[in-house]
């Protein structure tokens, strides 16, 4: 059902945990389908993501998506991170079953949500976040 990459990330997830003094925290998802994803960001003055951690209550692909997404954005600029789509996450995982695509969407949303938090705290504006509603993402991502 899952690719080897998914299983590998599920078994050895990268970047699990919390960041106490995070510059941005995002939480998305909906317990209804069994998934909540929380992401913590450290972002430096050059808008580079120096650290990122996650906690996920969710299925195997939600965990693998969190893991690979955090890997993808670590060391990248905020702009670059905002351009990571769920498609990219799926690609990197070597594919997901069609019923599981929404788990990768969750990862995309968690990134956006965390950066949104960082942006509001620091009075920054990213056009990639236009139209993004962190409330909606937390309520229901379907």
């Amino acid at each position, binding site marked *: 059902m*899952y690719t080897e990459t998914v*299983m590998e990330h*599920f*078994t050895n*997830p990268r970047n*699990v945990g919390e960041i106490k003094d995070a510059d941005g925290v995002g*939480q998305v998802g909906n*317990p*209804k*389908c*069994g*998934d*909540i*994803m*929380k992401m913590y960001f450290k972002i430096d003055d050059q808008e580079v993501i120096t650290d990122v951690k996650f*906690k*996920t*209550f*969710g*299925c*195997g692909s*939600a*965990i693998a998506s969190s893991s690979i997404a955090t890997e993808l954005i670590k060391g990248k600029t905020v702009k670059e991170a905002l351009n990571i789509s769920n498609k990219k996450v799926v690609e990197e995982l070597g594919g997901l079953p069609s*019923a*599981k695509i929404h788990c990768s969407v969750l990862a995309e949303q968690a990134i956006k949500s965390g950066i949104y938090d960082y942006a509001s705290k620091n009075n920054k504006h990213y056009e990639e976040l236009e139209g993004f509603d962190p409330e909606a993402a937390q309520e229901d991502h379907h």
Partner: protein
Amino acid sequence: MKKRVYMDYSATAPMREKVLEEMMDFMKTEYGNPSSLHSFGRESKNAVDTARDRIAKTLNAKSREIYFTGGGSESDNWAIKGYAFANRNKGNHIITTKIEHHAVLYAVEYLEKEHGFTATYLDVDEDGLIDLEELKNAITDETILITVMFANNEIGTIQPIKEIGAIARERKVAFHTDGVQIYGNGKVDVEELNIDMLSLSAHKIHGPKGIGALYIRPGIRLHNLIHGGAQERKKRAGTENVPGIVGFGKAAELAHENLEERIQEKTRLRDKLIDGILETIPHTLLNGHRTKRLPNNTNISFRYIEGESLLLSLDMVGIAASSGSACTSGSLDPSHVLLSLGLTHEVAHGSLRLTIGVYNTEEEVDYVLEQLPPIVERLRQMSPLYEE
């Protein structure tokens, strides 16, 4: 080789060797359509009759009251739709419960939605038991059928079938029960329990897949679900699945040898599992009634974690189980059974079902008890819901 522990017997049980042996003859040489006249066909017919006798015997029923079907789901659909369509002149109301298997639940919903029937879905208490008073109150002049499952496939709770049968009999309403899970896990006597229709499935008792049966009490009138040839006394068409029927008959016979002893042994292992988990892992909760439950069923919710991750992790150490979580059922909603007990979505998601079969050993139970705690701990560490 990696250790493999199968504890998902309620999903499907591997065929026993003796079952396969008896089937082999009919797959290899004794071919023939039992409805055919020639000797090839006659041999098949005798084998079908023997299987029917064997099953009837385990239920205290007559052979001619047993009809073979393509499985438990077909039996449920046939009983419910067949009875409803054939008796709509008497009324249009059906009573069932909120925790039925989907084969019952969706059949009833279908009759409601598409064929003008109405239905009452009885609530269950936190242990999964229906309330007999509520059942009585639900019966109206329009009620033609009560369908309440004998034992639940997820949480193992066993309903007061004898009392339900008595109420149905007294109120002159037909009584169907889905016996798929109880069969081979408890005594079923259709006379003593006043059961009018009973669904069975072979693969749950170490028989072959794709074969089931419906017991129908004489006098109970059903429309056919599958029309056509004159098989099964004209009630269920289709060339008989002779090897399947033979295998089902043998499996039924084997399952009822020393039934009592087996139940005791399964109960012992089940209790060891339940107690072991509840005692060693915090934030856990047994689902289903503690004693009125299938001897092979353990269903436990682990707070803060999600079922699929748990199953995947168990699978990686060779343990096969199932969950009431979204992801295994083809739907994203949590189990309707667990929600009916009053669990929140989140807790319902973190549940695990371990179902024991004749092949499980005490060592395997120990292995599960040893593997489970670190897995749960690891997933909880990843969970945003968990605070130590």
